[in-house]
Each structure stands twice: as C-alpha cells, then as structure tokens.
C-alpha cells in the first residue's frame, strides 16, 4: 500500500474546514481536538455549523465565545463540575447563535443514518418532548409495522468534516481510536475526516489484528496532524485526565466577555497550551 501524504502540519491538515462548513466533533471525553480548535480560532473561522456528538464542554464554548459558530446542534453544553458553559449560555441568551437542541441518541442515530447511506433513521422516545416540537426537520410517522404506533424519523447528518483527537495514527492515515467508536461513525458519515494525534505509530496499524480492532482505516482519513497533548485541557481516554485547574480557570475567566477575551489572548494566541 502506498503511503499517501496524509500526515501534515496542523494548519495544513485543517485546511478543509472552511467558513460555513458542517463540522462534527466528539463529546468532551472522547478525544476533543483542542489544539486544532485553538488553531481554528487563530485562523478566525466563521459561521460553523457545529455538531457536537452528542454533547460538548470547553470546545463548543470556546468556538462560540470567539464568534466562530453560526449554528450549534447538540444535546448539551456544560463545563460539568466546573459549572455552566458561560459563552454558550451568553450566546443563547443574546440570541447570537442558532441553536438546534437535540437529545444524545438522536445525534448518534442521525450520524449512523449517514454512515449507512440512508436518508433517515427512526428513534424511540421524543414524542411529547419540546425537543421534537422545535425541530421542524424531524418527522413523526405511524410505524407501518405497528398499530397506531407513532415514531420519530431523524434525517441523516452528513458533515462536511469530522474532526477529533486520538492516541496515534500511522503514516497510512490509519488512526487508532480504541473504544471511542463514535469517531468511526463520524468519519464514515462525513465527507472528510481530520484527526490530530498524540504520536505517529511506526508501521501499519492494520497489520496487527489487536491494534486493527481499534483502528479507523486511513481510507476515510483526509489528513492527520501530530499534536502532543492535543486534547488539553480536556482528557484523552487512557492517556491523560482533564486539567481541572485549567478548566476552573477557564470557567472563571469566561464568565465575562472581557475575561474570555483575555483567556483567548493568553491561551489561544500565545499558545500557552501545556
């Protein structure tokens, strides 16, 4: 197999993420590409349609605070034990972004629909919820297999780009994602996939059956960039925990627009990432 030029510099790798694109990113504990997110802030990306699968924390808050997001589609944004996500909250109250409230399995299902190349998939629940009420793009049908059995159909979400951070990739673009299999679904659903990784694995991840079981094939991967501690200050499963001190600092600074601006100046532009 030929090694295509998959491994690139971070900015080169992120080039397919353009203003206005439909970008899907993983939840706060599955390998959030924070170094890449800071690079997108520095580039001044605008008007993203951000799908956080199925929730987000610092990443969505940072992108929203910096004015990068036009539409946000997710089930929740919160800093967890560090409190509400302040820029998300401010943006909703100030109506500066379009919010598409969802529920976790609805987003998983909509990405799986794209993965399977079908226009929709059904999901139980939702009927009688205001989540459904405010989603004109979701439909209720009477199941043809039931007897007066209403069920919700969710349209497929086909992202332009899937972006995530993972422990390692090889030079063939194969990315080891381990148990975070929603990353594979994101990649299958998206037009292009960009991964940042802690390190490059020598050899081919698909050659070892044990590693291969946790590998997203390079076939789906547009580009890979190496970013050591690229999820910081969020955790990378089995590799490092969240930097709670930093998240508490963020929660405090981002409570005001001025404090957020200062945070961005200090931690995004001056690249004070660990």
């Amino acid at each position, binding site marked *: 197999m030929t090694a295509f030029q998959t491994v690139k510099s971070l900015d080169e790798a992120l080039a397919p993420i353009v203003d206005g694109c439909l970008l899907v990113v993983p939840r706060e504990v599955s390998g959030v590409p924070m170094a890449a997110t800071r690079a997108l802030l520095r580039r001044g990306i605008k008007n993203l349609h951000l799908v956080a699968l199925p929730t987000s924390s610092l990443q969505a808050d940072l992108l929203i605070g910096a004015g990068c997001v036009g539409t946000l589609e997710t089930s929740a944004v919160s800093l967890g034990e560090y409190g509400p996500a302040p820029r998300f909250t401010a943006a909703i109250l100030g109506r500066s972004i379009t919010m598409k409230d969802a529920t976790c399995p609805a987003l998983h299902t909509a990405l799986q629909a794209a993965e399977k190349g079908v226009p929709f998939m059904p999901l139980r629940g939702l009927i009688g919820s205001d989540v459904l009420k405010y989603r004109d793009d979701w439909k209720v049908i009477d199941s043809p297999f039931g007897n007066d059995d209403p069920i919700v159909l969710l349209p497929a979400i086909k992202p332009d780009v899937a972006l995530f951070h993972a422990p390692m990739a090889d030079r063939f673009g194969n990315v080891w994602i381990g148990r975070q299999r929603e*990353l594979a679904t994101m990649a299958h659903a998206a037009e292009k996939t960009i991964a940042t990784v802690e390190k490059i694995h020598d050899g081919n991840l698909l050659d070892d059956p044990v590693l291969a079981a946790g590998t997203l094939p390079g076939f789906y991967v547009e580009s890979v960039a190496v970013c050591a501690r690229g999820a910081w200050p969020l955790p990378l499963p089995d590799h490092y925990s969240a930097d709670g001190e930093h998240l508490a600092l963020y929660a405090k600074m981002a409570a005001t627009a001025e404090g957020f601006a200062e945070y961005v100046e200090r931690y995004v532009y001056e690249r004070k990432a660990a």
Partner: protein
Amino acid sequence: MNANFRPEELLADQIAQLIGDVRHVAVGNASPIPATAALLARERGNGRPYVSLLGSPKNTFWTDGARELFDCAGQGRIDVFFLSGGQIDGQGNINLVSIGDYDQPKVRFPGSFGSAHLYYVVPKVILFRTEHSRRTLVPRVDFVSAPGASAANVYRPGGPVALITNRCLFSFAQGRFTLVSVHPGHTVAEVVENTGFDFVCPASVPETPAPSPATLKLMREVVAPQLAELYPQFAAQVFGVGTAAFAD
C-alpha cells in the same frame, strides 16, 4: 438533624432501596449520590445489579462508543437510570433546557442530554434534585425536555417512579407524585411550602428511616473507596476517604 449519619447517606440508602432487585443500574455524569446508591445496591446484592457509572473506566463496560449506553437502554438492558431537571413539575415533566420562552429564554441550562430517549425506555427512572424549592419544583415546566407520561399509543416502557430531594421522597404513579416520607429534620408543612406543584399528601407521612448501622458501615468502608475513583472530592467530603491521584 441527627448527627450519626450525613444527609447524603440517607439519600443513598433510600435510592438503593428504590433500585430494588434489578439487573442493571446506570448512573449519569456528576451524580455522586446515585452512584453511591448503585454501588451500595451492588454490594448488598453480591454483584447484582450490574452498575455502570458514566465517566468511570472501572465501572463501565462500553466498548461500542458513546452510543452504546442509549442502544443498551433501547434494548431494555438498563433497568434503572437517574435524571434531574432545572425544573420538574407535578406531571413528572423535566426541563433541562431553559426558563422563559424557548426563543427568548431568561435562563439557559446545558440541554436535554439523553433524557428525551432514556426517560421513555428505562423502566425505573429515579428523579433526583437536591434543591427542593418552588424555583425547581414548579406547576408546569417552561420546556419539556421529556414528559413524565405519554399518550397510550406512544411506545413507553419506561418513566419516572420516584423523586427524591433534600427534603423528602415522592413516589410517582398514574401521572402524579405522592409524598412517601419526609427526611429527618424536615416537615410535611415545609415540603408543602417549598413545592410548586400539587401532590398527593397522605394524612400521615412517616419520617424517612435512617440508614441502619450495617448500611452505614457498608457505605463508609466498602462503597466509599470504590466511589473515590470517580468522585474523589465527594468521597473525601462525605466519607473522609482519601483522594486518589489521577493517572496521567
């Protein structure tokens, strides 16, 4: 309030009893008291129920990604789950989204998470809210993240069975809450005063029973050290268990 146990211990003991004899209890993020209860139930049941604590590598088995929790619930393989709400109303509706008009909210919460699915498919959902006030327990939620009950033709094997707060325990059936017991140090009058919705209030309401010495011993000596992996601060504050160092 009686000083030989902490309020968290009372709540965990009550929740463990609500869990009952089931196969699988799952506990969402940032829920140390339900997590304590689930681990307590597992100790009492000698390994049953299976306990999944979201966010704990040691206490989750998921290997199919973030969707597995919801798939598992959809399969009927999660018997008990816990939900809360920025607002909860007397019909068991929960609001995790916003206060005021949805398009022009006055307050925004994080969002509905998986509630709009899990509340429908998990047989026993235990509602949990430690702030028992007219602000949180309201006549009618401003946004229904997930309804307490559904029309007869809506697929709904699951739903709320109870609401436990810092003041009392309610059961939920036939679309309404019934006051079951009031925690030591609290009164029925205080519950009425602080509850924004109507509920069934029996003529005589018992005090929530204190955890037995055996339960307290089990919680403190066996459960607390397990809890410390995921909730080090909570384990330290409530049970005085040492904080584990984070792996890096």
